[in-house]
């Protein structure tokens, strides 16, 4: 207990950074992922190919490799950016591929009659997608999207391995003070359980409530 109480400020500020990473990358990945999904169902073959290529590539790349590039390669090639921002970019690019697949799966659950009716009314592709299909797809997309975002929350710890002052690195502080790293890490693990389990419960409830609709 003393391991936690002595370092409570540090512990909390580290989880604050974790949540910051999570929220920023979460929002960015959802925007990018939805755009990618729109590209993958668009009438333009080049866009479909680019979207598919991006998703295949990123889904088969270890996140560690993505962050490795941003942590160690980016500054060498381009210019200096604080690693927190680079971690946000890396996590967003990685997670966007999974968001894209989820959204695309959701689009396919909307009955074909809906978009046929939209087209009969004279709506174009962009209007059909944004006014008719996506709003209806949200129902079936939110539960799996929650689990994508839960995975993102856990993935933020990878950034700790690349010197972001994040929850995963809490043990180092304790270690320097001669405290038990085991206890420190157990507290971090507990912190994640406290963050993730309610999210999982929300996801389960949404899944149960919303899956009946169709």
């Amino acid at each position, binding site marked *: 207990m003393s391991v936690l109480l002595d370092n409570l400020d540090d512990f909390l500020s580290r989880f604050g950074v974790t949540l910051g990473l999570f929220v920023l990358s979460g929002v960015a990945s959802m925007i990018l992922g939805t755009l990618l999904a729109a590209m993958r169902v668009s009438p333009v073959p080049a866009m479909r190919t680019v979207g598919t290529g991006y998703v295949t590539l990123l889904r088969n*790349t270890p996140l560690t490799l993505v962050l490795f*590039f941003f942590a160690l390669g980016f500054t*060498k090639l381009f210019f200096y950016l604080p690693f927190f921002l680079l971690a946000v970019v890396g996590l967003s690019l990685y997670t966007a591929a999974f968001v894209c697949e989820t959204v695309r799966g959701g689009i396919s659950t909307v009955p074909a009659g809906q978009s046929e009716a939209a087209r009969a009314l004279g709506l174009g592709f962009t209007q059909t997608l944004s006014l008719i299909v996506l709003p209806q797809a949200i129902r079936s997309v939110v539960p799996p999207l929650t*689990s994508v975002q839960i995975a993102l929350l*856990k*993935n933020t710890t990878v950034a700790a*391995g690349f010197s972001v002052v994040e929850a995963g690195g809490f043990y180092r502080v304790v270690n320097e003070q001669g405290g038990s*790293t*085991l206890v420190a890490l157990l507290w971090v*693990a507990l912190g994640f359980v406290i963050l993730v389990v309610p999210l999982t419960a929300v996801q389960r409830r949404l899944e149960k409530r919303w899956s009946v609709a169709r």
Partner: protein
Amino acid sequence: MSAPTTVLFDVPGPRARARNTAAGVVTLAVVVALVGVLVWRLAATGQLDARMWEWILYERIQLDVLDGLVMTLQAFASAAVLAVVFGAVLALGRVSDHPWLRRTSSGVLEAFRAIPVVVLMFLLYYGMPSVGVTVSTYVAIVLALTVYNGAVLGEIFRAGILAVPRGQSEAAYALGLRKSGVMRFVLLPQAVRSMLPSIVSQLVVLLKDSALGFLITYPELLFQAQRLGSNAELGYPLIPVAIVVAVVYITLCLLLSALATWLERRSRRNPAVRTVAPRPEDGE
């Protein structure tokens, strides 16, 4: 999933065709520009110079990289086998008739799914020594991957067992099979067949996560990349080595993903197998 793409828009007329072509050209231009900037920066910072790629000629370094690959595959293989076993145990616990066993297994499963693999790995490697147990990097990475992926696989197995129609187990009980027999001869064979694509997809996740071993200095591919990249005699070829390692990793994962897709297609063709919709991938 080709249905939505054809239903979302009309067959393009002359104006729509022109517009689509324009959009296609713009997309390609953007992609070419992005790749161009990357190559330009690579060239401008001297990453493409012959000297930076010299390392690839040395036999010892080739062997080092190969060693890294072997280490990666070793960790992957042991963790994959153990995770499948652990997942099966958890799944059996979750479909057990004893409430206490069910509750314990789901508690264990929830906890292990909620803790990030990195934290598990750190716990084993940096945490255990403070209670006097020293764990090698190899054991730490294999155990962490086993525990996490075992929990996820447990969920997959359970879904597979529950997806086998009730009539199957009822018929087996009617024939006089015991609980273990029903599970072994009737439920599991059908469940495994229908869940095979999802299992292999989860193994892709495991393979990707094995790169996390880098964070605790397990000498796998990425670790070799960093070691070589900080070699002054070779001119710090971090980016060239990273490019090669990335190609190796991505090829491995693509091969495994292709296997999953192939299995899924094959089982979809086979009417005897009811494919359970694969678990939505969640980017672990």
